[in-house]
């Protein structure tokens, strides 16, 4: 059979099957694509308007829409995904292909869960080697993917020099989830220690660094779940790095874990009793695995003789068998193998290792920090906390003491905010304020039990973090109020309480960052903080921190007063701050905090003046702000911080410049900001704050272009902005801030539609924005921004409708 015949075969037409023309199909397709973006109700509304005078079109679309099936039943999609997977699996060598923005360089690992590659991000802004895990997708549906994304966000926030960072991730368009991690070139910690012939003391020191990293992750609510030497790599510089933090859980959520048991997932030698029993995993699980790693580092062998890998036998050994003391194990090891003889281990080290490895999670070290502390005590020759686990009365006493520590430590892990208080509380125990501490302890414990677990579960199971944060605020407030009542004249505690109130207030309501939309609550929290801080400044007027923090409280209150409608008062309050801000800024040395604050105050005053109609005043203030920030960019070694600040100045100065009539210069400023923000996002792709800022930049550049009649380029930026917004809302549908931005994006897109004479499309966008803004406004009725925004979109809709009516009734 020749080649020509087969080609001819496909070009055979089947006219009887074609009931529409290519032109008609294009029309059907574009309406269909739009409709597919909308939920059922909006879809109906959209179709009602889009097919208003074309019943055939509507029928055609309805027939096609009726073909939609659930993700799990989409055989056509499955065929395509399977085909891709077969090809990718077959590809022994995927080098050269791309995943997202990354180019695969070589394969470095292959396992049941997927394949690990070294890849390179290679764009104009950024060049970096990374490790990419491409995960074999399981049976997961949309909700599992959403959880995967949430979990990923939590992991992305881990930023510690000894933890390999999660840089990026998501799924390919085919739904294969992937993770982009910092690529660590190093040796497993046990191999490294042996190769470098490290002494016991050096091993211990290296190990405490690992503990610090684990502690950090625990404070961020992340449990590793698979700590083993292979996941603790030591670099050429001798710095240990934990890899795959929290990945076990993440993978579990994609459904890839569905086909395997939790055990086959873990490396059995390092698995804790609760893991092999399938009981819930806590931070104590990591402590256990750390204990096994230390056991191995010190003795050169593993604690249990595992005869088989049959799950229930493994579980039995891990749960019932008492590990030999590491010091004894060494002796035998020296006989068995001809490794270099090691000095006999101190009995303290035995106790430390075995304490970390206790069968009952609550009897281990309460935190990785305590674990490390005890090692430091040993290194310093001080008595260690770990005791040989023999006498029951001792154990009993110990458990009682430990319970307190467990509660407090669990609290530390819950949030930074509450953590501060818990630390204070522990210090007070040391000061032997017994009676009060006892009562406080009960509060802490109550909080630890309900709060930690509720919050943790909420964070890991809900579609967005907003609900979880609401819960934190509620619980946090109750707790802070009770503490404030008897803070007495303890300055340290007062200051920490004020800080905690401020954080709560910021979460409750802060214009322009993610918040919960609780306006009244926020004002109250900031007033409580201010009252505490006023008392502190009065008690010690020379303290810079007290003064700065009081200004912060006033700032928050001023912005809230302003948001409520009294802008004149807000302006006054902020101007009153300037002398003190200046004074603090000029006497500043290293941290630049006060200079950033000073710049911020000018910038904010500028925006306020602009809103009040004083363009000239606004320009002056924004220029002063930019001047200070440019200065900072030259001296602050933290370039991410200084650039972020600069982009804010470009944005605001751009806005004012445009208002002053110079749109061209304004466009240049906005474009400068956009470029800088793109680079910032490229360097830190999961940073919500930066992404929000980039979205803003697209909007402003779009605005300026539109104003300069470059409709097409403007539309490009608006599209980009709407796309980014939809991603944000999809990841966290309950966030008021994302919803707010979404409404703006829809309106801008609607405006463009109008410019291009697509009134119906504009109306669809405006209506979607209207629904969002109605919700937002009813959630916080006092917010004048929300009210005004609602009115704005209503006006737009009326205008369009009037225009449409005008057309219909016109000649």
């Amino acid at each position, binding site marked *: *059979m020749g*080649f020509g015949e*087969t*080609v001819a*075969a*496909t*070009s*055979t*037409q*089947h006219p009887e*099957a*074609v009931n*529409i*023309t*290519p032109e008609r*199909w*294009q029309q059907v*397709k574009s309406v*269909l*694509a739009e409709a*597919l973006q909308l939920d059922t109700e909006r879809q109906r509304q959209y179709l009602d308007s889009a097919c208003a005078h074309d019943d055939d079109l509507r029928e055609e679309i309805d*027939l*096609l*829409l*009726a*073909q*939609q*099936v659930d993700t799990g039943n*989409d*055989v*056509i*999609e*499955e*065929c*395509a995904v*399977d*085909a*891709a*997977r*077969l*090809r*990718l699996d*077959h*590809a022994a060598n995927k080098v*050269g*292909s*791309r995943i997202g923005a990354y180019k695969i360089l070589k394969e470095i690992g292959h396992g049941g869960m997927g394949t690990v590659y070294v890849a390179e991000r290679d764009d104009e802004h950024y060049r970096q080697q990374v490790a990419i895990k491409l995960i074999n997708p399981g049976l997961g549906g949309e909700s599992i993917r959403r959880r995967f994304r949430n979990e990923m966000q939590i992991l992305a926030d881990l930023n510690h020099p000894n933890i390999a960072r999660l840089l990026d991730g998501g799924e*390919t*368009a*085919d739904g*294969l989830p992937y993770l982009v991690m910092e690529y660590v070139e190093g040796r497993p910690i046990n191999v490294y220690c042996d190769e470098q012939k490290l002494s016991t003391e050096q091993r211990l020191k290296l190990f405490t660094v690992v503990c610090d990293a684990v502690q950090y992750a625990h404070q961020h609510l992340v449990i590793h779940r698979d700590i083993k030497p292979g996941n603790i790599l030591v670099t050429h510089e001798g710095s240990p790095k934990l890899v795959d933090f929290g990945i076990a859980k993440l993978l579990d959520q994609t459904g890839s874990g569905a086909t395997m048991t939790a055990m086959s997932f873990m490396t059995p030698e390092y698995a804790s009793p609760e893991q092999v029993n399938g009981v819930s995993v806590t931070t104590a699980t990591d402590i256990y695995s750390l204990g096994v790693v230390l056991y191995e580092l010190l003795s050169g062998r593993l604690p249990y003789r595992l005869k088989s890998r049959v799950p229930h036998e493994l579980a039995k050994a891990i749960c019932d068998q008492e590990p030999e003391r590491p010091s004894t194990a060494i002796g035998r090891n020296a006989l068995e193998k001809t490794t270099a003889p090691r000095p006999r281990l101190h009995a303290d080290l035995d106790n430390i290792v075995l304490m970390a490895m206790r069968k009952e999670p609550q009897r281990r070290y309460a935190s990785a920090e305590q674990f490390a502390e005890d090692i430091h005590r040993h290194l310093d020759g001080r008595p260690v906390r770990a005791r040989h686990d023999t006498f029951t009365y001792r154990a009993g006493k110990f458990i009682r003491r430990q319970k307190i520590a467990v509660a407090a430590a669990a609290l530390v892990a819950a949030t930074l905010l509450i953590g501060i208080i818990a630390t204070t509380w522990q210090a007070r125990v040391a000061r032997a304020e017994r009676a009060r501490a006892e009562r406080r302890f009960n509060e802490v414990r109550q909080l630890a039990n309900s709060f930690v677990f509720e919050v943790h579960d909420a964070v890991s199971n809900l579609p967005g973090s907003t609900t979880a944060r609401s819960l934190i605020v509620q619980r946090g407030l109750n707790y802070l109020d009770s503490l404030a009542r008897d803070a007495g004249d303890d300055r340290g505690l007062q200051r920490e309480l004020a800080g905690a109130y401020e954080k709560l207030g910021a979460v409750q309501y802060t214009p322009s960052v993610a918040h919960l939309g609780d306006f009244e609550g926020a004002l109250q929290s900031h007033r409580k903080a201010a009252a505490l801080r006023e008392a502190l400044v009065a008690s010690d007027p020379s303290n810079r921190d007290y003064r700065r923090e009081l200004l912060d409280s006033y700032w928050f209150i001023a912005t809230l007063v302003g948001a409520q409608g009294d802008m004149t008062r807000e302006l006054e309050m902020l101007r009153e701050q300037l002398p003190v801000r200046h004074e603090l800024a000029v006497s500043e040395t290293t941290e630049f905090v006060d200079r950033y604050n000073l710049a911020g105050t000018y910038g904010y005053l500028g925006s306020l003046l602009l809103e009040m109609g004083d363009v000239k005043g606004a320009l002056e203030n924004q220029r002063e702000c930019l001047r200070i920030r440019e200065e900072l960019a030259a001296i602050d070694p933290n370039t991410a911080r200084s650039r972020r600040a600069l982009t804010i100045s470009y944005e605001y100065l751009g806005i004012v410049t445009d208002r002053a009539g110079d749109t061209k210069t304004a466009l240049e400023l906005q474009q400068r900001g956009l470029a800088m923000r793109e680079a910032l996002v490229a360097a830190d792709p999961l940073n919500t704050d930066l992404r929000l800022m980039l979205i803003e930049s697209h909007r402003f550049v779009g605005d300026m272009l539109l104003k300069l009649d470059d409709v097409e380029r403007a539309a490009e930026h608006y599209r980009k902005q709407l*796309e980014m917004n939809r991603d944000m809302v999809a990841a966290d549908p309950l966030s008021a801030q994302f919803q707010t931005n979404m409404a703006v994006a829809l309106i801008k897109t609607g405006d463009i539609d109008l410019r291009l004479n697509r009134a119906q499309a504009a109306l669809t966008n405006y209506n979607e924005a209207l629904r969002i803004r109605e919700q937002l406004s009813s959630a916080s009725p006092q917010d004048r921004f929300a009210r005004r925004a609602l009115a704005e979109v209503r006006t737009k809709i009326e205008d369009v409708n009037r225009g449409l009516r005008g057309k219909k009734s016109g000649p």
Partner: protein
Amino acid sequence: MVSSQQGVTKLLVAWGDGDKAALDELMPVVYDELRRLAQNYLSHERPGHTLQTTALVHEAYLRLVDQKSVNWQNRAQFFGIAAQMMRRILINYAKERNAMKRQGYATKVSLDDAISFFEKRELDLAALDEALNTLATLDPQQTQIVELRFFGGLTIEEVSEVLGISPATTKREWDSAKLWLRRQLSTRRQ
């Protein structure tokens, strides 16, 4: 007729650089190689061995193209052609098989596995082919997207590379093509 690896690679690069004639030379080479590979599989059938058309495409690539001399676009383009060719091989085979079945022959050849890849999902290959032919008259690009995905095993991103359109557009086109195909296939079944 070119057959060497260098020859194919050169044609591929030339086509990538805009030389349309190179494609005409390239297609028969790819087609023959794929068919040869398929035949090879058919005659060396091992029990339990599943022939995967997409794997075949990949193998053809490894055989025909000097990977050091091509860039990603060339590679994607190769898969583009191969996918189209694979579709033809598979359809021709399916027709042949049905004819043999009608005549009472037992069929035991291994491309069955490739076909069952579709059939186990109740996708009738002949019907799919017909539907794709119809779609080609309405929207050739959409047809190509489906081909690349089904028969070439390309991902959305890779399809975008081959066709030089954005992944978002590819996804949109793919989504509507899917609905169209599903309707076409379900009407046929009735």
